[in-house]
Structures are given as structure tokens and as C-alpha cells.
């Protein structure tokens, strides 16, 4: 019984971490129409910032500050926001396809920094022994406690973003997404609004990275594998329904459950000696899932709600 409980709790923790990131990407893409293909880069900034701030130190690290975890999470959001601000100032004026290429490049540069600044990031060794809140309680309560931290983060990010989206700010964002020239023509500072959405969304993605680092108690360069980290968060947003914050959370749950189920499927269907390669078959299935959703259900599970600012759907 306790085994099942623990399995459910750890699954929900991972779903929750991805939900935080999907919320951030949804603010950027679903509301701002900003194609951020560098999710993995902001994940890395958040994860490493919190790791450096809270790490008790390791032989490879020159800098470790052993601060409490909440300060690490806070620092992760600030750092991701600052990096996003610097990048956004330069790149957000680019059109959609070019912005996508540029954000891939940014993720690549951040990966190079992580690999090469060994004094800060531990290089290939990563940063081990990170603190996890409630770790002293023992199983299963330590995990349940951490799930509480994750849920609290989701609630805060969701509430903040939902409030923003329903405010005049959210309406301007959608106007810019749907027709930037018209929005500029009625006097909206398109560049400033897009920059705000980019920075806030990246802060949420960075928070997700920090939570992930503390959950695994470790962050290393493999964790920032650019294609997959970025891709799965994108699939979550599209499956959930871009432009709907609840959809982003639901999408994270649905995609992660499918991802976990493919593990069962590949271990049953594929021959034994293919076991090592089963992971690739799973990624392939997720790639196909995106294609099916894009072609058949472009609205996602929970379509964007347009109309009454208090949130009652009026069709659209």
C-alpha cells in the first residue's frame, strides 16, 4: 500500500514540476505568441542558480553558499528573469521563426556555460548533495512534504498568471499575439509587453528547474538536454490547450501519464535485448503524439476561453 502511495506522490511531484514550467511557457506562447524554443536553457539557469545558492559544497565547486531552499528558489526566479530580460531586449524584436532559432541558440550557449564554468557548476560532475525540504521526516512524509512545496508553487504561479491574464494586461497580450500591428496602432508598446510576458514566463520555467534540482538532489549537464526538455514542455502546453492556464496544468498531467505509460508499453511489446533502446521508442511516441494533436485537436484539451473577463466562457 505504502509503495503505491509513494509511487503516486513521486509521479505527482514530477507532474507538478512540469506544470510550473508549462504555465510559464503558456504565458509566453499561449498569451504572448512568443515561440520560446529555449525552455531547456531557462530550466538550466533556474536549476543551477538554486543549486549554487543552496549547495553545502563539493570538491569541484569553488562557490557554494549553503543558503536555505526558499532563498534558492527565489534566486532561481530572479536569475531566470534577468537572463530573460537581457535576451529579450535583443531577440524579441525578431519575427516568429527567427526568434525560435535564436532561443535554441541561447539554450545552446547556456549549456556551454554550464559545461565550462566548472568553478560554479561543477562542469561534467554537476552539483550533488542538494538539500530537499522535509527530507528529515523519512518516507513517505518527506515526499508528501515536498509535494506540498511543489503544489504551493503551482498555486502561486497559477494565481499570479491567471490574475495577470484576466487584467487589462492579459487582453493587451492577446491583442498583440493576434495582431501586433493593430495593437501598436492603438498605442500599445508591443515590445515592452512582449518583454514582460517573456520575463515572467521564464521566471516560472526557472522555478521549475530549481524544484527539479532539489527533488533529484542533483543537477548535472545531462539534465539540460536541449531537445527533450524543451520539447516535452511544449507538448504539454499544446495538448492542454495553449492560452488556458488550467489547460497547461492538465496537459502536464496528461502528457506525463502518457509518458509513464509508454514505459509499460515498450517494456512489454519490444523484445528483451531492445530494452536499452526502449527509451528512444518512448520519445518517438511523444513526437507522434504532438503531430496527432496538432493535426486533429489543435485546440487542446481545454481550449482558450474568450469573452467575459471574469472567466465565464461565452464562446468564441
Amino acid at each position: 500500500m505504502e509503495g503505491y502511495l509513494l509511487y503516486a506522490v513521486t509521479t505527482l511531484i514530477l507532474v507538478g514540476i512540469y506544470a510550473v514550467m508549462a504555465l510559464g511557457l503558456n504565458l509566453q506562447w499561449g498569451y504572448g505568441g512568443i515561440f520560446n524554443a529555449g525552455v531547456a536553457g531557462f530550466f538550466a539557469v533556474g536549476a543551477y542558480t538554486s543549486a549554487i545558492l543552496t549547495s553545502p559544497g563539493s570538491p569541484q565547486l569553488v562557490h557554494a553558499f549553503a543558503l536555505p531552499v526558499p532563498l534558492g528558489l527565489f534566486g532561481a526566479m530572479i536569475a531566470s528573469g534577468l537572463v530573460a530580460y537581457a535576451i529579450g531586449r535583443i531577440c524579441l524584436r525578431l519575427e516568429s521563426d527567427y526568434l525560435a532559432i535564436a532561443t535554441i541558440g541561447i539554450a545552446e550557449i547556456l549549456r556551454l556555460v554550464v559545461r565550462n564554468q566548472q568553478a560554479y557548476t561543477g562542469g561534467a560532475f554537476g552539483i550533488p548533495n542538494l538539500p530537499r525540504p522535509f527530507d528529515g521526516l523519512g518516507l513517505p512524509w518527506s515526499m508528501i512534504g515536498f509535494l506540498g512545496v511543489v503544489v504551493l508553487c503551482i498555486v502561486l504561479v497559477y494565481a499570479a498568471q491567471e490574475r495577470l491574464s484576466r487584467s487589462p494586461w492579459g487582453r493587451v497580450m492577446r491583442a498583440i499575439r493576434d495582431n501586433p500591428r493593430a495593437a501598436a496602432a492603438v498605442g500599445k508598446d508591443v515590445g515592452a509587453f512582449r518583454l514582460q510576458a517573456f520575463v515572467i514566463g521564464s521566471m516560472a520555467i526557472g522555478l521549475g528547474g530549481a524544484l527539479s534540482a532539489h527533488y533529484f538532489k542533483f543537477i548535472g549537464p545531462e539534465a539540460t538536454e536541449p531537445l527533450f526538455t524543451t520539447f516535452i514542455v511544449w507538448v504539454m502546453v499544446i495538448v492542454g490547450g495553449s492560452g488556458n492556464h488550467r489547460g497547461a496544468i492538465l496537459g502536464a498531467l496528461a502528457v506525463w501519464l502518457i509518458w509513464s505509460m509508454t514505459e509499460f508499453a515498450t517494456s512489454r511489446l519490444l523484445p528483451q535485448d531492445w530494452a536499452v533502446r526502449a527509451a528512444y521508442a518512448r520519445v518517438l511516441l511523444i513526437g507522434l503524439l504532438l503531430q496527432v494533436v496538432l493535426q486533429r485537436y489543435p485546440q487542446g484539451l481545454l481550449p482558450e476561453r474568450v469573452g467575459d473577463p471574469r472567466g465565464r466562457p461565452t464562446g468564441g
Partner: protein
Amino acid sequence: MDVLGFVNLYVIPGLVLGSIYAVGAIGVSLLFGILRFAHFAHGDLGTLGGFLALTAVWVLGLQAIEALPLAMAGAAGIAILLDRLFYKPFRKAPSIVLVMASFGVALILRSAIQLIWGAESVSYQSGIQRPIWILDTFRIAPRHLWILGGVAAIVVAVHVFLAHTRLGKAMRAMSDDPALARACGIDTEAVIRFTWAIGAALAAAAGVFAGMDVHIHPSTGWDMMLPVFGAAILGGIGRPYGAIAGGLLMGLIEELATAPLFFGASLLPPAYKSGVAFAVLVAVLLVRPTGIFRGKLF
């Protein structure tokens, strides 16, 4: 360092690298010009070509350069199939949906490659090749000569095709003005299929050359994406000749930025070499987004 040593150690490898980028960039530029979206799976099509050639080397006992046409044909066929399955449904959709779909195709291709060929680096042939001296002045590895020769042959073929065949002219017409091309009775779907075939064949060639240069790995193509896109934009989107110039320049810039030119110090630490392409790309987009040869801007 004397001038000759500089040429042999940095300029020649830079040109070899640049010619590989050039081949990839021609395809990106043609596809961007005609389909009007940034094809993110282009690098992975190149990886696929590299592994198709590897299979030919293993099964048929060919040299990598002999396997090149087979890999190009195979990649072309697969690209037409991918277009039918994943891109054709979005012909009238906003281009960003296509970008997203191609992101998914990149992941599908890469995981299929890892599934079939495994996740390790593989070389086409083992052993060390001794560099040869040309005119007792230039030192170059035989595989680099093959790559430069292969690229030159491909560039000539692309030029003849674009300038002198009906289909090539139809492609350029469609790139310049799709509505007018359709009004003139050009079968746009056929042109699109052909563009995919050519783009994928060129990507495959880039993949095989990259594999001949060092080794082939499931991320070979993805890692080439930034310099290849940078080269296409540097040369001007929709300008195949610009893409060639852009590719050569990109290869040289990457090699020279990390070369110890300034009293033994380099502009950038070599570990940051793959960041150079990104810096060039962003600089071009901000300063002169139409590229050197006044390409299109979407």
C-alpha cells in the same frame, strides 16, 4: 606562427567545415524560400543521411564517398514521405505551426535513428589518414580533399539545375512570388515535393561529409543546425548562392574565432566554439536581416 602554418592549420579546416555548412544551408535556404518556414528537422535529416551511408558502408562494403548518392536518394524519399504525413496538412496554416511540427519531426527522426543505429559515435573507416602535401606548400588530409571535391560537384549540379532546367526555374519563380507562379500554371505541389527531395538530399550530403570529417553521431545534424541556419540567413534566405558564401564564411569565422591569433591568445576559448555561430546569427538578424545578398525576410 607563419602565414603558411596559419593557412594549413586554420584556413583549410575552416573552409572544409564551411563547405559542409554550405551544402546544408542551400537546402535550408531553398526550403525557407518556398515553404516559408524554418525547417527545424533539417539537421536531423542530415544525421539520417549520415547513418544511411553508414549502412551502405557496412552492408555493401562501399567507401563513404561512394555511399553518398545512396544516402542522398534515401533521405530525399523519406523527406517526401515526411512532407506528406506531417507538413502537407498545414499548407495554409500559420508558419509557426509548421515550425512546431518540424520540431516534432526532429525528435521523431532522432529517436528513430537512436532506435535503429544506437546512440554511439561511429566512424566510416578506422585508422588514421596521413595528410598529404600539395605543391609542397599546403597540407591537407585526403578526406578533406574528398569533402571539398564532393561539395564542389554538388554546388555545380545545383547551379545547373536551378539555372537551366524547367523545374529549377519553376522553383525560383515560386520562391519569388507564389501567387504569380500558381497563376502561370506551375504545379506548386510538384515543386514543393521536389524542393523537399533536393533539400533533404543536400542535408544528407552535409551529414555524410560531417561524418567523414570526424564521425557520425545521432546529434551530428542537430549540432550543425545553428551554423547552417546562420549561414542561410547570412547569405540571404532564398538565395542559394548566398547560402554557399554564408556557409564558407561561417566555417572560417568559427575556426578563426578560436584560433590563437593574438600573440598566442584566441578571441574565444575553444570550448565556446559552437557559440560563435549563434553570435553571428543574432548579429546578422539585428544588423542586416536580409543577409549579404539581400534575401527575403518573413
